[in-house]
């Protein structure tokens, strides 16, 4: 069934968050290419669904210099593993502003305020497209993070997966070995340092050529321009697709109404409540002003 303007994701099996924020201990923080992976042990938390996110803030030294950062930051979880002491949550961060700078500097033993898991997760492949032969994962830059946990959760259900990852250049790349080391990945880079020289969406366009399109279910996360290309490509070819998006967001639980994303049929959704995973057909555009910062 082709997507229509009023399509909504087929499932909404969101995991409900424990009430309020909780302090979690940072257990690891290591470099991966131009990014860092940091981990926190969530003693109380449930195991999240792929696509869900957490609001994060360092418990100490958050906003002590020049009053920023003030608000917590929304982070899709990259991987979650149930361990003896709770759930280990992995996040991928690139230092681009006062919030990410502080999170990237977290040391083992520091405390992190965590609220979540929040929001709507990725749908199961069979719910996204009942005729799907498999899933295509498309990640751009640090947007590969939620696709890592998605890949594992889909593989656990026996879904056949093809993964396409793209990066701007070597400095703006990372996490592939750590998060996708297990599996075959096709790469693209704008500077040609790895894989296809060009955009990851060009790899997607090739995959979606011909009859393969109808049996595809696409999951994408990356910068707004990439997501918009994926959205347009999938709509044009009647391919079911879900996009994990981001916008400026103050609270993450529906209170501030700041994270407006325009809907295809008019009005706005609150990305924290009705996303961050959206059906490509339900939004007007993935190029939302203010996002991607």
């Amino acid at each position, binding site marked *: 069934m082709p997507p229509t303007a009023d399509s909504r994701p087929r499932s909404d099996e969101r995991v409900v968050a424990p009430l309020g924020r909780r302090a979690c201990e940072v257990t690891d923080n290591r470099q991966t290419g131009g990014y860092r992976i940091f981990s926190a042990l969530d003693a109380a938390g449930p195991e999240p669904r792929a696509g869900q996110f957490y609001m994060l803030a360092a418990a100490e030294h958050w906003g002590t210099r020049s009053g920023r950062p003030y608000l917590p930051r929304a982070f899709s979880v990259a991987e979650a593993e149930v361990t003896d002491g709770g759930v280990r949550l992995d996040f991928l961060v690139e230092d681009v502003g006062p919030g990410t700078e502080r999170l990237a500097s977290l040391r083992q033993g520091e405390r992190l305020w965590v*609220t979540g898991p929040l929001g709507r997760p990725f749908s199961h492949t069979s719910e996204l497209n009942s005729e799907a032969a498999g899933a295509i994962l498309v990640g751009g830059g640090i947007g590969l993070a939620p696709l890592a946990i998605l890949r594992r959760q889909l593989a656990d259900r026996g879904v056949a997966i093809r993964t396409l990852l793209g990066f701007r250049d070597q400095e703006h790349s990372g996490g592939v070995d750590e998060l996708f080391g297990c599996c075959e990945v096709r790469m693209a880079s704008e500077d040609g340092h790895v894989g296809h020289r060009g955009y990851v969406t060009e790899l997607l366009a090739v995959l979606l050529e011909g009859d393969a399109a109808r049996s595809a279910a696409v999951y994408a996360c990356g910068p707004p321009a990439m997501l918009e290309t994926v959205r347009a490509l999938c709509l044009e070819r009647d391919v079911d697709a879900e996009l994990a998006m981001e916008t400026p967001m103050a609270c993450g639980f529906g209170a501030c109404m700041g994270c407006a994303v325009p809907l295809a049929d008019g009005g706005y959704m609150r990305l924290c409540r009705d996303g961050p995973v959206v059906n490509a057909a339900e939004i007007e555009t993935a190029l939302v002003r203010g996002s991607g910062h």
Partner: protein
Amino acid sequence: MDLAVQLAGLDLEHPVLNGSGTFDVIAARRAFGDALLAEFPFSMFVSKTITPEPRAGNPPPRLIETPAGMINSIGLPNKGLEGFLAADLPVLGELPVPLCVSVMGTSHGEFERLVEGVAGRDEVVALELNISCPNVESGLIVGEQAPETLSLLQALRPITQKPLIVKLTPNVADPASIARAAEEGGADAVSLINTLKATAIDTRTLGPWHGAGRGGLSGPAIHHVALEQVRAVAGAVSVPVIGMGGIESGADALSFLAAGAAAVAVGTANFRDPLAGSRIRAELETALAEAGVGSISDLPARTAPSTST
């Protein structure tokens, strides 16, 4: 410690409310489940502002972080009066605390329709009048003009016996004069401050950051401006004052109570910590004890707010 307060005839378990539009219990219940109801952070819930017709809200971006705060430009998205009464009010009626509904119209007629529609419902114990909007008949912002405020209250007061709480804007030279007009018109309480008008520039485009051009500043950045306005207003009226503006801690809340507020509201802090209200209430108890105040009713400024003009 007994933190109970009386506010415009309402008995509240403690003095910590939420600011209108800073907590959506329906969305929060979806994120956190029914645990939210068992540990509800506020002693009265103030709804987001309802307008007569549905509103989609402003185009993005709607917010930006600032030093110690944020600038929002949300644009009052809501389902409109009919949608609110049908879809939201029954759910809000299940809350474990009293419900105050915030309304905003652009004419006396619109306000009258809203107050008539909301005040008759049993789930609603009080109404907040958001007057930071233009009256299309005069072209003036109601809350910036004492005569406009007085005449609006005179039009609405006969409609309901339920408490009318007037939400004051800080974007005036003399908020006390607006508060006095509200009181003269029959308001049961005033609440302040709303956000301070603010602008952020996108330095790449050199245009405004917000989709709607400008917004309102909130958070700790406005705390002491709010405190001064609450002090000035509490000294000018005899109706109770609900104080808000950058409250992040029990000590902040106590500052407002000491400045003359009968109750306080938590706004932007909710975004950082969904249970900020509960934490601030607990810290307030400690802060009162440390200040040597045995009971919240012993706060001198609270008991005689109108005597020091």
